[in-house]
């Protein structure tokens, strides 16, 4: 696999010692200060996204995966606040590369605005709520183009038509005059992707982009995203709860549970040798299509705890089948590396607690 890489991307540097990192998130913490207490929606999350690659963020509702996506663009509204961490993003400035910490920019600063939509774009689950029902597709796309480029309204419309072409929507000219309600869900999601492409982003944050779509439409959108990724060389942060989708889209995956990453690995290992009991249980609990299983499905005991009352220690311990009393309900387990690209937060693999000195 590794040897084939330079052949596919001939323009990239021949020496591939370490992957170029487009985005590095370090110890990101985003908390919500509500009347009922503090919700630690994202609590010490770290991961890297290599240039042009797809990182999947897998988790159930409430695990903090969407908040992580929003935090990258600093789109966190009160009572939420990013309380710590670094988001290092590699920018290209007149051909020169520089690494900036996005969190150093204010949420309303010109700098972050220039990044939003330009260098980092985002698409969401429900495209209907992201499009204004009162304006035509053309108006909305042209508006997005005009934000990024100083051109005439007419050329913006031309550009909008080109973009619709890019996302393989037929009769683009005709579509420009249509309103969102006249489009199907799949077409609307294509329009959203077209809008995200206006600024040629280097990173696309896709938050459950196909969850609301039918399976045939989903397959089309996933294919489209893959070919656009190849064409534009953009990296994708793919947020989803769907194991099938993540298997198709991502090269590496982080699994989140209650605001923390519990396992981080490449996609093959995730499915072939998952280590964290939560990851394993999650994989076992889905009906595997094509392999009908008689008898009950494997389940995860109990339910996701209240975000106001996160269990002590490893937050999965009340539901874990390998719970060790006195260990798992003590301190938070540290991230343990099993190999260079595979880490897990679980006392089954290391006795190291978070923040504790090594060798304890």
């Amino acid at each position, binding site marked *: 696999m590794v040897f084939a890489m330079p052949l596919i991307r001939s323009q990239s540097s021949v020496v591939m010692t370490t992957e170029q990192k487009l985005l590095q998130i370090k110890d990101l913490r985003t908390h919500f200060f509500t009347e009922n207490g503090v919700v630690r929606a994202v609590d010490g999350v770290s991961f890297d996204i290599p240039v042009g690659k797809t990182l999947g963020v897998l988790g159930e509702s409430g695990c903090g995966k969407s908040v992580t996506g929003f935090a990258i663009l600093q789109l966190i509204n009160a009572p939420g606040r990013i309380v710590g961490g670094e988001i290092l993003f590699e920018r290209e400035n007149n051909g020169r590369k520089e690494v900036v910490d996005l969190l150093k920019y204010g949420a309303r600063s010109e700098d972050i605005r220039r990044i939003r939509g330009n260098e980092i774009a985002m698409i969401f689950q429900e495209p209907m709520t992201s499009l204004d029902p009162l304006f035509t597709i053309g108006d909305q796309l042209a508006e997005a183009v005009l934000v990024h480029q100083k051109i005439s309204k007419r050329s913006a419309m031309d550009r909008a038509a080109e973009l619709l072409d890019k996302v393989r929507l037929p009769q683009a000219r005709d579509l420009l005059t249509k309103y969102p309600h006249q489009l199907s869900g799949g077409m609307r999601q294509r329009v959203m992707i077209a809008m995200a492409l206006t600024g040629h982003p280097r990173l696309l944050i896709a938050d459950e982009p196909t969850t609301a779509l039918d399976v045939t439409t989903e397959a*089309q959108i996933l294919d489209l995203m893959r070919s656009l990724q190849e064409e534009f060389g953009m990296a994708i942060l793919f947020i989803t709860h769907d194991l*099938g989708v993540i*298997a*198709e889209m991502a090269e590496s995956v982080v699994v989140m549970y209650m605001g923390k990453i519990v396992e981080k690995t490449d996609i093959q290992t995730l499915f072939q040798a998952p280590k964290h009991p939560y990851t394993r249980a999650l*994989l076992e609990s889905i009906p595997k299509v094509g392999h009908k*299983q008689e008898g009950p499905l494997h*389940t995860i005991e109990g*339910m*996701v705890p209240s975000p106001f009352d996160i269990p002590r220690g490893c937050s999965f311990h009340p539901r874990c089948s390998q719970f060790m009393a006195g260990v798992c309900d003590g301190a938070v387990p540290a991230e343990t590396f099993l190999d260079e690209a595979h880490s897990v937060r679980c006392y089954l693999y290391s006795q190291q607690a978070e923040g504790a000195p090594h060798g304890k």
Partner: protein
Amino acid sequence: MASELNAVRKPKPLLEIIHLKKHYPITQGLLKRTVGYVKAVDDVSLTLNEAQTIGLVGESGSGKSTLAHTVMRGITPTAGTVIFHDQTRGAVDVAHADSSTLRQVRRNMQMVFQDPFSSLNPRMTVLDIIAEPLEVNGIAKGKAAQERVAELLQLVGLRPEYMRRYPHAFSGGQRQRIVVARALALNPRLVLMDEPTSALDVSIQAQTLNLLKELQSRLNLSYLFISHDLGVVEHVSDLVAVMYVGRVVEIAPTNQLYQKPQHPYTEALLSSIPKPDPTRKKQRIPITGEIPNPANPPSGCHFHPRCPYAQEVCKRETPLLREVKPGQFSACHFSEELSLKGVNDY
């Protein structure tokens, strides 16, 4: 005893849907002249046996939910019959029953919807919610109703102590259990489930599916199970029916349908499923185009504009649903000639 056992083994039909149609007129102008019809359900026939599950799959707009509502006669059908084999009344045509018969028969058929948040009244306690069908139908009230509610809550795996709480105090999975408890309050024979686990998280979905299967074998229930999740449908169903623009295009025993589909649309659906197996990446050939507008569907076989195997005849003639293999029915002119790929062939 022996004859009784035999009777159990031989599948007894519970619900027979025969040439059921639901067409909505499209009106135009001041006089509301009918200019066409949306054929939401177009000549569907299905037989659901006792203690059996039929899974109903298809893209949104294919008529799955309309079919379920029409079976309950929440929507009055345009044509066709729905025979329900009632234990006391015998065969009843739900589609043409008078209102008092309908009331009686409907006790035996219940529905569970996708969203457990909107199907529970936030101002009613769990006790009131589950006791309501008992009171409305004059079966139990007061203390007796309370006891029955406690029993039902236990049946669905919830603590009876929770009955005085309001829906907001429960998680999505628990709410869906409450919905199921309410559906079971009148001891129905048939439960129509419209995407019952789609709003739930993966880990909760497995619990709910297990519960539904357990209840089925304990209470001898029949399910008509609508879902767009082909993995879930495969897991719960004995038979699977595939709908496309108001018509059933294929129906077969689950394994047969998934491994050896006979209709190109079924093949397309199966190939579109994102499979939780990264080694099988990027091998599928997704179908192009979108589901057609049901107000103006393509001529002949509705699937022909998207079908990779379509020929001239497909534009002209509507294929009939026919048995192409034992127990497997397909509505395609070329089922015999085509060798279609199953879910594991990608």
